[in-house]
């Protein structure tokens, strides 16, 4: 630009070429003209001229130099000026551009301001939106809270309900059922729970249970009643059969014995049902029953009694109130033993007096018990109360009966494999049920017989009767009854007025003997005993006599008048 604006000015450091050329030409001219002038002056031998020429040349050179220097300076100043002008111009252009830019910037700023306003408006709107959204959110949250609270309430209600149901199942229902089982009516069982929230449910359940309970009780009662009637029938049939067995001779005796046996088995079944239904057992014995009789009483109630061998040397007796139960339990055990061993095999019964009481062992040589059977048997006779639901369709009644009787009388029953290959059952009769002197055996007639001796010996010189008096020293066990602890049976059977008294479980025929009992009771003299003996003799005689049909003697020998006569005889 500077080159452009100052076309004749050369580069700044160098003088302009025109100036240089002019200067050079002036110098050259001076250099050439000066020597020539000097030389000519000197040639002319004019030194002053030569000097003047020399001086003019020097001055020229100086003038030329100054002119050149001035020119150069002017050129430079011009150049500077031009340069400044250029700068100013460019500055002006720049300023314009800046102004333009400023304007543009101002425009931009305004638009930015507008934009900002717009943005602010936008923001305000957005803020409004946010506020609305906040409000919405708050509302939703509140709703949610409400919802949650509601859920909580529902859950709490459900919890309460569940707790209530749990309480119902754990406490209330069992209690109500227990009351019902105990025989309470539905209303009285529910009396304490009338306000119970689940009252309707409770009532429904209670009524159902109550109905079941009544049904059960009714069924049991029916069974017990039926069993009781069969028991009574069996007892009276026994009494009649016994009486017939004494009346008829051996032609009929076999049949009577068979009938007796069947009756005894039927009686046992009735007894079993009575035990299972919780009714009374068959008979009560007024006196202690000797072990042998207990064993035989049990034996008589089973089918295969002929396969049972008794080994008994004990003279102990079982208390009358428990004897029937012991017999019945023993009969069931014997029945099991005979049923589980094949027919020719025998079942052995051993009796042992132990400190704890009386141990009766029943051993068969049958199949033996399996482990599970053994456990079941043990459980059946254990101390757990009888649960009728465990009875399976009528089979295996025996052990349940044994268990019930064992619990009732405190009998201990244990099962073990027998050394003989079968099963051994040990029944331990506790000591408190066992009496040792067996007082019921032949106590009363003893003194009577002593006195009676002369009356009889007169008729018959051989000392026939007196069964126990001479035997007493021989075996002390049998002598024990001689201890005067007697007479329990006699007062038990007769009232003060001498009338026969019927015991429970006894039939009237057995309780009211024909005629001899009143005759024998009041005076136990030698005469009465003699009369009784005589009567017995004649009755025995009559038995064969009637069968042989020897008319004359038996006609007069009617039993009824015999005893009064002999009584009067005294």
């Amino acid at each position, binding site marked *: 630009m500077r080159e452009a604006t100052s076309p004749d000015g050369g580069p700044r450091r160098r003088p302009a070429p025109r100036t240089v050329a002019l200067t050079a030409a002036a110098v050259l001219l001076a250099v050439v003209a000066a020597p020539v002038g000097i030389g000519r002056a000197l040639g002319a031998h004019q030194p002053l001229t030569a000097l003047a020429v020399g001086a003019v040349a020097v001055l020229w050179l100086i003038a030329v130099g100054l002119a050149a220097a001035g020119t150069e300076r002017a050129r430079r100043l011009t150049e500077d000026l031009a340069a400044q002008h250029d700068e100013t111009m460019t500055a002006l252009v720049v300023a314009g551009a800046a102004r333009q830019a400023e304007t543009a910037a101002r425009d931009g700023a305004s638009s930015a301001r507008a934009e900002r306003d717009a943005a602010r408006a936008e923001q305000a709107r957005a803020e409004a939106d946010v506020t609305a959204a906040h409000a919405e959110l708050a509302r939703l949250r509140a709703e949610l809270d409400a919802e949650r609270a509601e859920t909580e309430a529902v859950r709490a209600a459900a919890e309460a309900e569940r707790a209530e149901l749990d309480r119902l199942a754990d406490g209330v229902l069992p209690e109500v059922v227990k009351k019902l089982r105990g025989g309470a009516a539905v209303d009285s069982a529910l009396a304490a729970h009338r306000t119970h929230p689940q009252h309707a449910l409770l009532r429904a359940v209670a009524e159902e249970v109550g109905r079941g309970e009544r049904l059960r009780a009714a069924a049991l009662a029916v069974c017990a009643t039926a069993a009781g009637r069969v028991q009574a029938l069996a007892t009276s049939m026994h009494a009649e059969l016994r009486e017939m067995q004494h009346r008829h001779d051996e032609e009929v005796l076999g049949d009577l014995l068979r009938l007796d046996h069947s009756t005894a088995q039927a009686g046992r079944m009735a007894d079993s049902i009575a035990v299972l239904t919780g009714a009374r057992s068959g008979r009560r014995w007024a006196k202690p029953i000797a072990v042998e*009789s207990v064993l035989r009483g049990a034996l*008589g109630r089973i089918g295969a009694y002929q396969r049972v061998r008794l080994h008994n040397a004990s003279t102990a007796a079982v208390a009358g109130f428990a004897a029937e139960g012991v017999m019945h339990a023993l009969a069931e055990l014997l029945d099991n033993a005979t049923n589980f061993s094949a027919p020719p095999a025998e079942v052995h019964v051993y009796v042992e007096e132990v400190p704890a009481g009386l141990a009766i062992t029943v051993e068969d040589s049958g199949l033996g018990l399996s482990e599970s059977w053994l456990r079941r048997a043990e459980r059946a006779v254990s101390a757990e109360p009888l649960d009728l639901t465990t009875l399976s369709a009528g089979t295996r009644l025996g052990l349940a009966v044994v268990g019930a009787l064992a619990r009732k009388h405190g009998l201990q029953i244990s099962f073990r494999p027998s050394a003989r290959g079968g099963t051994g059952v040990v029944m331990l009769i506790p000591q408190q049920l066992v009496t040792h002197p067996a007082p019921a055996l032949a106590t009363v*007639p003893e003194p009577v017989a002593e006195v009676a001796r002369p009356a009889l010996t007169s008729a018959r010189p051989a*000392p026939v*009767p007196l069964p126990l008096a001479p035997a007493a020293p021989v075996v002390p066990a049998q002598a024990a009854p001689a201890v005067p602890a007697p007479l329990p049976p006699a007062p038990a059977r007769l009232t003060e007025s001498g009338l026969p008294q019927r015991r429970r479980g006894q039939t009237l025929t057995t309780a009211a*003997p024909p005629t001899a009992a009143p005759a024998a009771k009041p005076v136990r003299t030698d005469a009465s005993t003699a009369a009784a*003996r005589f009567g017995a003799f004649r009755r025995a005689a009559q038995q064969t006599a009637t069968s042989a049909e020897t008319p004359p003697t038996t006609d007069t020998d009617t039993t009824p008048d015999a005893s009064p006569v002999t009584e009067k005889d005294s």
Partner: protein
Amino acid sequence: MSSGPVLPGRDDDPDRLYTITRGRSRSPENAFDLVTLIVAEREPAPGMQSEHVRILRMCEAPTAVVEVAAELALPVSVVKILLGDLLETGAITARHPRFAPNKARLPDLDTLKQVLHGLQRL
């Protein structure tokens, strides 16, 4: 069993007759009649059936079958079975009274009847 004057046929004992005879209803041999005298030859052994024991005690002196039956309060046929058992084991012997010579010395039936009537009238 023998308490007081025993009434035969009285059902106050749990023993049934077939358990006493172990099912037999007639004696295998006809060794006894009502007046056969029984004499015990041995002491009763422990473990014996109680009826056997009592028979042996009773028959230490000779006793008639019918008296044994009366004492035991058992039917004669049952007693005969029991006696048959004892006879088999040799625990008793049975003596039959000889009727022929005795019969001559016995008072006749009419006299006895009169005596009986006389007794009854007392």
